[in-house]
């Protein structure tokens, strides 16, 4: 046994005796350059809408208003009734999810209604994302949910109603690598 191995062995023994078998690695020295952000600034910029409704703004929208907005902003790509054009089919599922050519529409596939608000507010219409008011996003969500047979034509959609809506495929997903 050479001197180096003896040194290692004695170091290990010391560590064992002092109850500190693995010395902590040195913390990475980093500057702390993050600037604090004020809460009201944050709230104004936050777009995430969670399944429990967290992140939904106040406002409301009707199915009828949503129909008008859909015809103007969305039908060009999604088709006039939302059954798909050059873009996704959003309504009108006929083949079930266990069919080899299943229709994955909002009504048949999407697990959460809040996703509609999250996605439309941030990403639609494609030519001018982020330009719709909260009322308009509620209205479009209302029409899409109605067109999928999930709410009645006279529903006035708001944060509480959207978060409370249980989608048919809520339990259709297997979490593979989620914590």
């Amino acid at each position, binding site marked *: 046994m050479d001197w180096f191995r003896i040194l290692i062995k004695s170091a290990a023994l010391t560590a064992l005796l002092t109850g500190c078998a693995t010395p902590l690695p040195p913390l*990475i020295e980093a500057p702390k350059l993050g600037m*604090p952000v004020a809460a009201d600034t944050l709230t104004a910029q*936050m777009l995430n809408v969670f399944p429990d409704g967290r992140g939904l703004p106040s406002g409301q929208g009707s199915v009828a208003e949503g129909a008008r907005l859909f015809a103007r902003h969305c039908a*060009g790509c999604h088709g006039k009734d939302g059954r798909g054009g050059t873009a996704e089919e959003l309504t009108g599922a006929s083949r079930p999810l266990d069919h080899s050519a299943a229709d994955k529409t909002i009504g048949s596939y999407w697990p959460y209604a809040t996703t509609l608000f*999250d996605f439309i507010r941030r*990403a639609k219409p494609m030519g001018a994302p*982020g330009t719709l008011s909260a009322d308009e996003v509620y209205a479009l969500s209302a029409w899409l949910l109605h067109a999928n047979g999930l709410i009645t034509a006279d529903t006035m959609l708001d944060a509480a109603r959207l978060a409370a809506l249980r989608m048919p495929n809520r339990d259709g997903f297997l979490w*593979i690598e*989620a914590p």
Partner: protein
Amino acid sequence: MTRRTNSSPDTAPVDAGGGALDRRRFLKRGAALAGATTVTGPRAAQTGGDLPWLHVPGQPFSAYGQPSQHERYTARRIGANRAVAGNGVSFTPLEDLEGTITPNGLHFERHHNGVPQIDPARHRLIVHGRVRQPLSFDMKSLLRYPMRSQLLFIECGGNSNAGWHTEPIQRPAGSVHGLVSCAEWTGVPLSILLDEAGVDPEASWVIAEGADAGAMNMSIPLGKMLDDCLIGLYQNGERLRPENGYPMRLIVPGWEGVLHVKWLQRLEVADRPVMSRNETSKYTELLPSGKARQFTFTMGCKSLITSPSHGQTLRQPDVYQISGLAWSGHGRIARVEVSADNGRHWTDAALQSPALPHCFTRFRLPWRWDGKPAVLKSRATDEAGNVQPERAALIAERGRAGYFHYHAIVAWAIEDDGLVSHTY
């Protein structure tokens, strides 16, 4: 065909299954074959005549170098949405490249609504949500933080999705499988910034958001973020290209491309996933049962022969270099086997070292084509023991409606005229 006609039976390359050569025997015999070529005399070489560039001064210096004009066809192939030009993909031409690094101008793209032209002076990264102190970082600040460099592949979850089709798609290898690229990414370990903001011990997810037109958002487990994710600032030594997230993107080693959020502007620490459109209605895989796999992050163990591959032609029976790429989101590539007889016999290919985790590994194997129909396949195994599945096995497990995460063995058929096409 000097080599073949002058090779006596005991010095000829030995087939180890359908013409794939035993690598060690081939290397041993290489010297003898080269000698035989010299002795009998090669065909007369063409010199090209008196070359004009020997007699006139060349071009001046260039501020940013470009590929040779003779290589201008080595280009990304674009598959954009006709209605919305910024929605679609461009493929890396894998069959035109060698080694493991994808040049920055050829890195694949997937955009949901175009490439934003971001002024870095006006861009901020905000870390908020379940943190002690919400923080905003500007570019100048981030560039002062400790950085790490890693060679990593990024693969779109939808790469190779034509493999689910009933008929083999007839397109060049890169135009089917080229939504994967490999680069050296340098940036700030995310754990440093999260530590500075002070993460709530109850938190378990981080929702990343881009600054594109659509503010694309994806949920990523906090554990992965703290483990090995980076705020990517440099790509192959230079600052990110706009189409790859300039001025910053998330780097999530080994996980599907959509999580590597480009133009990163916000990280919300949370106790649950946000259930965004791209983690519910997209990037989930419908199974035959009607249930769908969700949060399938790790890219599977995969390989692909890039040469010979679809659209290429073997001019005559001779020795050819099989060359390809292997990668796995689970870690390092441990082994790549090649078959020239549709999977009946397999031979180990040589792996170009170093084989790094979550990185392309180049494999090569010399192969003597005898002029008869053959089917070439490659099969990767990673250090965790994952073996790339045959297509039939993957479909038996997943059905054909999953669309994402196709990583089955790819087969190239060689006809007796030397033409290479895709086959199942």
